[in-house]
Each structure stands twice: as C-alpha cells, then as structure tokens.
C-alpha cells in the first residue's frame, strides 16, 4: 500500500488541489460575481485593445514581408474583372446595336441578333459575382487576425510572426477554451436549476422579479463564457413590455447578446436534447412561446399565439428574427411578413459583429451546433455593437410587406449593412420561375411597344 502514496504523488495532489482552488476563486471573483450584479471590471476591454494593437502590428509585418518577397497579397474585394456600367436596359441594347451594324437605328424596334449579347453578358457577370450567394459564407477579412481559420494564402513571413501565432494558439486552446467551457456549463446549469426552483413559486410579482434577475444573471455568465464584448447604443429605445423586438440574425449567439441586456419572451421550436431541457425549464419561470414541430407549419396558430401574448400588456416583449435564417452579417435579407402582421409596436435592433476578433456567422451547412460553439469559444473574442432603434408602428396605408421593408431599411442603415430584397431562404431553395418571366416581359414590351408605333404611322 505504501507504494501508492509516495511523497511525490502527495506533492502533486497538493499542488493540484491548490491550483484548482485558486482557479475557482478567481473565476468566482472576477467573473461570476460581477455577472450577478451586472458590473464589469473592464478586463475584457483592455484585452480587446491589446489584441487590436497586436493585429495591426501583424498586418504591417505581413505587408512588409510580402513586398520584400514580391508575393501577391490576396485582396478579397478586387472587382477588376467585371466592368460595370449602370445604364438602363434599353440604352445598353441600343449601344450594342449601334456599335455592330452600319444601319442607322434610332429606336430599339426590331429584334436584332446582337440583342443576345446583352443577356449573355449579364448572365456571365452574375456567374462571376452576384449579391446573394456570397452572403451565405463567412466574410473575408482584409487583414489577418492570427487565427489559422481566416488564413487565406498568408505565407510564412517571419519568425516573430510564427512565434506570436503559436503563442496565440497555446493561449486560446489551453487557457481560454477550458475557462470558457467551465463558465458555459456553470451558466447553463444555473439557468436550468434556478428557473426550475422559481417555477415552484406561485404566479405573482415576486416570481416575475426573481425570474428577471435569474435570466439576466445566467445570460451574463454566458456572455462572459464567450468573451463577448458588447457595446449597447441608445439604450433609451430598449423594447418595452407588450411590444415586438426584431433584429437581424447572424448566429444563435444573437439571443444571448440581446437577452443579457433585457428580458424577452422567446419564440421558437421545441428541440430535443439539452436545448429542449433548457427551453422547458425556462418556460417554468416566465412565459416564453415554444411551438411543437407540427404547430410550426400552421401560420394562423402561430400568429394567434403571438397576438394573444401581446394582448397582455404586462408580458415581456417578444424577440423575433424575421430573416428566418443566419446571414453572414454583411447584409440584411428579406424580412418575412408574418411578424409584422400581428400588430403591436415594433422595436428594431441592429446587431453588427466586428469580424476582426472572430467570425460569428453560423454556416449551418458547414458546421453543426457543437463544432460552431467550440469555434466561437476558441476565437479571441466576440465583439459586437447593438443599436436600439426608435420604435415603429405600421401606418394606415402600409401593408405588412412595406412595413417589413421599412424596418429592414432602418436596421440596415444603422448597422452599416447592405439592404437586399432577396429571401434568405435562397440559401437552400431555388428562385421562382416568375422572376425569369419578368425579364422576358420587359424585353417583349420593348419590342411590341415600338411595333405598335410603326403600325400606327
């Protein structure tokens, strides 16, 4: 028996014990306690500033190195291939015809063989680059942020840079990642446990008060678990009870970011597994709106439940992401009109992530939820800005679609995102035949219109 407990082992045990205790105390003091009270030591902001300086240095170093070695730097946004001229449809066709034949043409009246050039050129230009497909993959960065995953053809430049990168790797995976995973488990565990406990209380003011506090606290711990550094702007426009909060959608983390600053009633489908457990316990403490899978298809049922919730003015504002899918945070896509039909005041919120510290976009065809979360937790940080926009309501002569577009334009403008009319569902589906017919109609109108002129004269 004595062989098992020699002094060396004893020493190791003691050291392990001490370091674990220290670890947990630090965790408690610097992270969990501030999360409970909603204060911050400012450690994360300091961290962010240091990282920025580091990235600037790294980028300069790479550019210098590239010049010395005559390598071509990969600039992601060089559109030198397509020469775009924003002329109208008719003008372009006339231009093509004029440059081709020797005939004297004034109007784009008859069909000419050269008309096909215009459509071919448009077609190939859209194969080369179009506004929509590039929104469904991660944004490309101009500079490098010391993460291999955003490393597009950055060659070996110098020893110092490699050492720095190696150091970064070590820090991120052996220090930050375990820390964050621990926090995440703590946060989620506390959420489930405490909401169940609160669920036992009778409905009333005490229950609502406590549930608010518990939700905020657990979301703040989760925010620290991701090292998310969030700047909230215009907090006076924060969504109030009885309203609907709409925001652009980039990843599931959006929920955590918004919910750590205010309490919302969430809307969504009930999942199985861990997600389901969390959802079911959350609904015990305060009324969220969860749907069974079968109910999701029934739009009237969904609309009814949402409007019932809004009727009760003391209930928390509903949080909805009208795009319906995750977009890569460079643009805002079509808002589904369902959430804008139920009435109530709409509080738009714009969320913009800073891609230099870690790309938050969830490409669900490339990564599953777990590997996505692991990627998030092993990036440097998640830095984002949240703008609360002034509330909007539907006006008398507006229909739901126009209202949705108005809100979308406001969010895009505030967040500095491109406002697109296309549907986010194009990520998975195809364009409808009706769009092709639009172009044909335009062209045939042009031909027929002038035919009529000639037959009259």
């Amino acid at each position, binding site marked *: 028996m004595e062989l098992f407990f020699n002094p060396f082992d004893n020493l190791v045990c003691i050291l392990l014990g001490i370091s674990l205790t220290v670890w947990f105390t630090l965790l408690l003091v610097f992270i969990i306690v501030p999360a409970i009270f909603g204060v911050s030591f400012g450690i994360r902001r300091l961290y962010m500033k240091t990282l920025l300086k580091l990235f600037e240095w790294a980028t300069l170093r790479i550019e210098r190195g590239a010049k010395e070695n005559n390598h071509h730097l990969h600039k992601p946004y060089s559109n030198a291939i397509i020469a775009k001229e924003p002329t109208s449809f008719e003008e372009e066709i006339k231009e093509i015809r004029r440059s081709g034949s020797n005939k004297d043409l004034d109007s784009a009246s008859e069909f000419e*063989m050269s*008309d096909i050039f215009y459509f071919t*050129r448009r077609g190939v230009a859209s*194969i080369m680059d*179009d506004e929509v*497909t590039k929104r469904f993959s991660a944004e490309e960065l101009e500079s490098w942020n010391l993460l291999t995953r955003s490393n597009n053809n950055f060659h070996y430049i110098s020893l110092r840079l*490699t050492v720095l990168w190696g150091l970064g790797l070590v820090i991120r995976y052996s220090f930050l990642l375990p820390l964050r995973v621990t926090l995440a488990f703590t946060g989620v565990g506390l959420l489930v446990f405490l909401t169940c406990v609160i669920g036992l209380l009778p409905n009333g003011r005490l229950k609502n008060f406590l549930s608010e506090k518990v939700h905020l606290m657990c979301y703040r711990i989760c925010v620290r678990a991701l090292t998310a550094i969030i700047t909230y702007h215009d907090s006076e426009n924060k969504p109030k009870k009885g309203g609907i909060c709409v925001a652009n959608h980039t990843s599931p983390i959006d929920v955590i970011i918004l919910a750590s600053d205010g309490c919302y009633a969430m809307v969504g489908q009930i999942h199985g597994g861990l997600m389901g457990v969390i959802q079911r316990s959350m609904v015990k403490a305060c009324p969220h709106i969860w749907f069974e899978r079968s109910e999701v298809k029934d739009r009237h049922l969904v609309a009814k439940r949402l409007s019932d919730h809004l009727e009760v003015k003391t209930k928390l504002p509903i949080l909805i992401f009208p795009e319906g899918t995750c977009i890569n945070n460079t643009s805002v896509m079509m808002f589904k009109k369902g959430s804008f039909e139920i009435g109530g005041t709409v509080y738009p919120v714009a969320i913009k992530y800073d891609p230099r510290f870690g790309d938050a976009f969830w490409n669900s065809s490339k990564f599953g939820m777990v590997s996505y979360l692991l990627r998030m937790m092993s990036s440097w940080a998640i830095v984002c800005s949240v703008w609360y926009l002034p509330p909007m309501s539907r006006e008398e002569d507006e229909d739901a679609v126009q209202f949705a577009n108005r809100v979308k334009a406001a969010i895009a403008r505030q967040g500095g995102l491109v406002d697109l009319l296309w549907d986010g569902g194009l990520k998975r589906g195809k*364009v409808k035949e009706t769009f092709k017919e639009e172009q044909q109609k335009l*062209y045939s109108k042009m031909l027929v219109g002038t035919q009529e002129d000639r037959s009259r004269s």
Partner: protein
Amino acid sequence: MGAFQSSPGQPEYVDLKEKTGFSISQIRVLHTRFKLLGHNGETLKRDHFNSIPDLACNPIRSQIIEAFFDRRNFRQNGEGPVDEIHFEEFLMVMSHFKAPSPRMIEERESVRREKLRFIFNMHDTDDDGTITLEEYRHVIDELLSLTEDLGKDTAKDIADAAMREVASTSMAHMEPDEFFEGITFEHFLKVLFGGP
C-alpha cells in the same frame, strides 16, 4: 507543413495566366468564386449554376449554362458537351469575356472573332457548325415571353421577320439551286456587321 498554408500552386496560376490572359489576382478571385459555387468541390456541375438567383432571372440562362459545358469553348478544339468542368475549363470560358487589352489591330480582330464564335456556339446547339432556322427560332422564343403582352402570333411574327432577314442576307451569296441549310459562322458575322 506548419500552420501556414502555401498558396495553391503559384506555378499552376502562372500556367493559367499564360493560357487565359487573366492576371494572378484575377485568377485568385475566380478560384474563390469557383469554390464557392461548387461548395468546395473539384468540379462544377450544371446544378451549381442554378443556385445563382440573378442568373435565374435571365431568359437565356440555359444557353449560358450550356456554354460553360461545351467543349468547343475550351479552346482545345474539342466538341460536344461535358457533365462537369474543372477550374481550368471554367477560366477558359470566362476568358472569352475578358476586356481586350490594347493590342495590335490584327490581334484585336482575332479576339473579336473568338468572342463571336462563343455566341455562335451558343446558338448552334447540335454542334454541326451551322445554325438552322429551328435553332435560331428557339433562341428568340426564349428571349420573348408568352404572356398577354405579346400574343403567340406576335411572337411568331417577330421570329419570322428575323429569320427572313437572316436568310436574305445569306441567300444573296448562294446559287439558286442550293438548299439553305443554315447559317455558317461567316454568314453570322455578315449578318451582324453588314458589309459587302
């Protein structure tokens, strides 16, 4: 190995640059696009092109997509369609649309001819070197639409008028007893640019 990926074969890009005339950075951009469209696969298939919304609005979309899979456009003197294309073939087809750089007059002529050959190939779907009247009408039908704006008869009229013009231009150069088989490439050029 290390953690730094080297750029995918600088020598390969140089080779492609010689063949197509694109610059290295343009080739890089196109390669990224190729990978995005093909979901990081080695080849592109027709289905991948169907996922571009702007292209779906284009009336002659199927002709344009076919052009990418047509061996005649790969500059290797081949013929017939293929089912999938690699990056080199994608670049070859794209290079037909490259803006001409300021060069000598003779080169500019041949570049122009090549571009027109591309359009000719788009019309000539059965690869026989001539555009028959059916093939031509097919293209016109795609461009026009069958809605109330344009009755079926009007569409037919427009198509017939265009046919007649083409036929008269080329017939002027044939013997009376020759059968009009179709427009060859030379006729095509004449129709477009008038001339003697």
